[in-house]
């Protein structure tokens, strides 16, 4: 198409300026440079990834990985622009739910053959980015969601402390929340981090609860429709429950800051392992990390964080594969976990790590991830799915008819799938 041609040429032009300008000067030791793109997530992760790359380069004679960091906010757009321009780097960091989209669009190359299969087999399933039966990405770490509360609060409420084997039921959780609210000490007993209104958080945090109710974002077997899944009976129960949380004032529709739990404004926080150090610092030994409730179909938490993939246009996939194989070594995974506090993705790496070993202070997150993490659906239409779900759920929060809101979300998703001819392969 004419306009795409122009668009491509423009993007090439813009990107060439970027890459040619900032690219490393060639060095004369016969090693081949592999460009790597990563998202700027945080200072710890940035430093840990740089250290990882340095260690890889130090033991290599054939390859040298050259890392370029891009802001996380525009990361997705950068990948799209680079792929339109045919200037994808060799190794790319990809957020797990976007793997299917990039794989379908032909930006990524399957890892099978480039990375030894036993290495991938050892990785927790949710940390592997699969699409259409192939592995396209794999992560060094994952995250885990949990309920955080204080031991003293549960003692005062005379509520049992749930375990991974016996989590709270939906009814128990409900009773506790209402008693906390009735106690008058907490204006909003539960903090769901609703301050973050981005689709990424809402999908990551609340679609697992929908799954625990027995619904889902789309029909995962076919990937062809959301009908009956996002707007079925189970989803309606989930939506009604979610609306009730706000109608009864158990959750604030927009927390003013991220400190509701540590400041004692909320009794329970639904949050990720990344918040644990902060909570620990303020709450100390009173802190309890609990599995989310079982709403009838088991405990479910979201799985899949940032992962590594090889681009289709990479001229040296064997080099990229060597890098990914290197960082999947248990020692490398453990080092990353020690530096960043992220959950390691293999059993052996967890045992080697400082905090996630069988007696480590963060072990509970590893167990949560291993037992309950399920990846978000691997559909190329994920961004639409996430937006549709988030819009529906935020409308439900603000009082829209639950059935109408979920029907709207379902129709959005189904229309996008139809528009893309069912995401048929090229």
């Amino acid at each position, binding site marked *: 198409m004419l306009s795409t041609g122009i668009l491509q040429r423009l993007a090439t032009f813009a990107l060439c300026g970027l890459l040619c300008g900032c690219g490393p000067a060639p060095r004369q030791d016969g090693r081949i440079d592999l460009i790597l793109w990563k998202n700027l997530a945080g200072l710890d992760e940035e430093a840990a990834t740089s250290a990882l790359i340095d260690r890889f380069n130090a033991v290599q004679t054939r390859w040298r990985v050259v890392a370029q960091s891009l802001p996380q906010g525009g990361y997705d757009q950068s990948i799209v622009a680079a792929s339109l321009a045919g200037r994808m780097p060799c190794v790319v960091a990809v957020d797990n739910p976007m793997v299917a989209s990039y794989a379908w669009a032909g930006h990524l190359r399957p890892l099978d053959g480039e990375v030894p299969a036993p290495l991938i087999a050892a990785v927790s399933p949710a940390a592997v980015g699969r699409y259409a039966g192939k592995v396209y990405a794999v992560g060094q770490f994952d995250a885990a969601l949990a309920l955080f509360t204080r031991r003293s609060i549960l003692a005062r409420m005379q509520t049992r402390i749930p375990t991974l084997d016996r989590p709270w039921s939906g009814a128990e959780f409900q009773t506790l929340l209402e008693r906390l609210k009735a106690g008058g000490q907490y204006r909003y007993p539960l903090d769901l981090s609703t301050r973050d209104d981005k689709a990424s958080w809402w999908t990551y945090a609340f679609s697992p609860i929908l799954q625990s109710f027995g619904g889902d974002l789309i029909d995962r077997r076919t990937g062809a429709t959301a009908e009956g899944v996002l707007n079925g009976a189970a989803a309606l129960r989930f939506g009604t429950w979610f609306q009730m949380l706000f109608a009864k004032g158990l959750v604030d*529709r927009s927390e*003013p800051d991220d400190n509701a739990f540590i400041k004692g404004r909320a009794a329970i926080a639904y949050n990720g392992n990344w918040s644990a150090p902060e909570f620990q610092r303020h709450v100390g030994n009173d802190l309890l990390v609990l599995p989310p409730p079982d709403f009838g179909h088991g405990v479910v938490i979201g799985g899949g964080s940032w992962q590594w993939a090889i681009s289709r246009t990479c001229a040296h996939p064997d080099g990229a594969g060597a890098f990914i194989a290197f960082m999947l070594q248990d020692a490398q995974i453990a080092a990353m976990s020690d530096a960043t506090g992220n959950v390691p993705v293999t059993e052996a790496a967890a045992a080697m790590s400082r905090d996630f070993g069988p007696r480590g202070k963060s072990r509970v997150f590893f167990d949560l991830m291993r037992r309950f993490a399920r990846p978000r659906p691997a559909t190329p239409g994920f961004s639409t799915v996430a937006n549709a779900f988030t819009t529906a759920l935020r409308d439900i929060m603000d009082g829209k008819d639950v059935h109408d809101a979920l029907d709207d979300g379902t129709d959005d998703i189904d229309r996008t799938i139809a528009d893309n001819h069912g995401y048929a392969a090229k």
Partner: protein
Amino acid sequence: MNRDRRITPLVFGAPALIGLAVFLVLPFLMALVLTFTDQRLVSPQPGAFVGLRNYQRLLSVGALVQSPERDRDTAYVRVRAVTRSDPAWRGYRPLGDFRIGARRVTILAKDPPFLRALGNTFAFAMMVVPLQCALALGLALLVNAGIRGETVFRAIYFSPVVMSMVIVSVVWAFLFDRDLGLLNQTLGAISFGVVRPVDWLGNPATAMPAIAIMSAWQGAGFQMLILLAGLQGISQELYDAARIDGASVWQRFVHITLPGLRQTIVFVLIVTTIAALGLFTQVDVMTGGGPRGATATVMFEAVRHGVREGDIAYGATISVVYFALITGLIVLQQWLMRSRARVAG
């Protein structure tokens, strides 16, 4: 000589014209082409021409008339049940409803969020333009009154303009907070608790006015500067003469200041309106288009569809329709002003 006269303006205009052509006209023409396709940002499938499908999805409206179910008087079949089962209404969603006798009429549209966003955007413009211009005029008059430290005040009033809109939005989201926000705390304190806390950004009725207030505060400094320049262009002799004639402050304002500022005010109104119709950042940061779509704007919808969901063709359609709409309004306004001038002349 004659040829020179034709070429010279083109030569001098070339830098600007080339810039406009490359960065405005060309992208717009590309967008126009995109609106007839199903082009996606990320897809291995090549974009195909789909005719007017995007326009139909954006603009289709209809009305569904329902009689109550027989046994009860106020129960109707659920509208969404009808639109999802009746092929004639496939893809339609309710926009609003009203009653005629026992019948319920539901206005349906294929993209109610867009139509609501269109209404929201114009509602925002209606709120923010008078507010911001009045505020700017007030500030300009204050700064121009010849009090000491005029420059300091001018700098203070102008400072929000140079601040990043994202930062201003985050700060104001704190100020507007229901329980901890400064605004509610102040209202509660000065009314001794009579005024109950308002969930400014969480209530569909107050969310857009709240954003309008914040936007007016942020932007007024810019209009203040322009009006200030206009004020200083009014001859002091006029004021002196009026004072000798015994004109009051109010009379001087109405009969000298306002007429003297007429052209400036028209310019300021136009500039403010254009900025208001492009509302995006505040909404994206403060409300994400909520609650229940009460603050979604056209630009917000265009970005949501075109960029975040990767449906660039549909995003382009929204932009093109919006462009056509605004162009139409401007042409209408110009025509009205010209015909009024003719009547006056």
